[in-house]
């Protein structure tokens, strides 16, 4: 058994080592399921690993050398955010590191001279504006239920958090579509073969730099699905089922909706998801303060 004081470090290390493998596998299954939904055979499950392996075999043509720094920072802070989360750290700190990593990818896209890259960066910023309030509301909701911002406390809570936070959960699923770069909210860049404004934020990244962005996505997948786990943490089996169902729904939505304009994305994330989250938090506050003080 691991001593209690080393447990956070061990969990963080396990995340750093296992998350890219798991994330790549999720991406591969995603592509396979997507292909089957479109009546195609689809690529092998391990295709994302082949893609990244290939990207590291290519030369690295950079437009400005600062790009290298921004891409590396994006990857590092994504890993830090996930490692903090899985080591049971403070949710607010996790969200801070998570946002910071996305600011780095936006800076990286702005650092180049391509107008496509700039459009992608602007759209990425809009996406951050859209999903950020809901992510914070998720943390606040979990605080209201468990009285702690620490993931270690939230995950060991025997309370079925989902029953207290159904609105927040639906809101989180809505912004998850933005975060996973799924249609209808895949504005800044997309994993599909279609070519919206060339490739958005990734336009001017090639070779190993693009590979690093892909690996950061894999870390991100595991972190985002880990947040779903928190809602169902009282029962691991239900949590795994919830993650599978939620991800399948995301793929289904991805394949049934076309991309929307940024205005509708912002409205969906703020008005619909935000209202669901705020009403949910308001009801919790009322119950906590008035009904059972």
């Amino acid at each position, binding site marked *: 058994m691991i001593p209690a004081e080393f447990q956070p470090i061990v969990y963080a290390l396990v995340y750093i080592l296992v998350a890219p493998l798991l994330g790549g596998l999720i991406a591969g299954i995603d*592509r396979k399921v997507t*292909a089957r939904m*479109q*009546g*195609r*055979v*689809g*690529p*092998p499950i391990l*295709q994302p690993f*082949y*893609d990244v*392996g*290939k990207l*590291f*075999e*290519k*030369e*690295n*043509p*950079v437009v400005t*050398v600062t790009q*290298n720094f921004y891409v590396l920072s994006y990857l590092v802070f994504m890993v830090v955010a996930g490692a903090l989360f899985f080591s049971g750290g403070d949710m607010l700190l996790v969200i801070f590191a998570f946002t910071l990593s996305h600011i780095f990818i936006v800076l990286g896209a702005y650092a180049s001279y391509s107008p496509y890259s700039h459009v992608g960066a602007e759209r990425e910023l809009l996406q951050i504006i859209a999903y950020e309030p809901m992510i914070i509301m998720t943390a606040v909701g979990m605080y209201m239920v468990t009285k702690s911002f620490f993931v270690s406390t939230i995950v060991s809570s025997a309370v079925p958090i989902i029953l207290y936070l159904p609105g927040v959960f639906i809101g989180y699923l809505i912004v998850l579509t933005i975060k996973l770069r799924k249609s209808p909210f895949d504005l800044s860049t997309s994993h599909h*073969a*279609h*070519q919206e404004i*060339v*490739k958005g934020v*990734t*336009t*001017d*990244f*090639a*070779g*190993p730099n*693009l590979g690093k962005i892909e690996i950061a996505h894999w870390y991100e997948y595991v972190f985002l699905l880990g947040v779903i786990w928190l809602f169902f943490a009282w029962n691991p089996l239900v949590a795994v089922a919830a993650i599978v169902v939620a991800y399948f729904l995301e793929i289904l939505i991805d394949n049934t909706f076309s991309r929307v304009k940024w205005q509708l994305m912002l409205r969906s994330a703020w008005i619909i998801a935000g209202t669901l989250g705020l009403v949910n938090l308001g009801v919790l506050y009322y119950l906590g303060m008035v009904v059972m003080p």
Partner: protein
Amino acid sequence: MTYLAKSPWIVHYNASSCNGCDIEILAALTPVFDVERFGIINTGNPKHADILLCTGSVNEQNKVPLKNVYDQMPEPKVVIAIGICAATGGIFRECYNVQGGIDKVIPVDVFVPGCAARPESIIDGVVTALGILEKKRAAMLQKGSAEGTKAGETV
């Protein structure tokens, strides 16, 4: 076999083709042929691409964009000229503004014949190009070790 051959991403450039070959390229991406099962993705961004699929006879207007697309692709890369126009200029070869085949502007590795080229022969051309891509990668590594650089290094 390297990862290159398992994940060739393509970029498609139409150098004043009649659109016949382009439709056949798109046909290769549809569920019937589904080239994504070989890891082939149509990227639309030369910086992400390994293979340049080029159709049509090059003319004075588009030889610069074509050269530009080619130059933006990171090494190792291959060029496939699709259709008879891309190979020789085809029926347009005697037009006053037509340069002739793609090889007048950029080096071509594989020629896919046909008017229009069939999706099967386009896929065959891409598979042939994969072998060339691997050879170029090996040559790049050799050249790199001679000059003290390796793949993945900033250039």
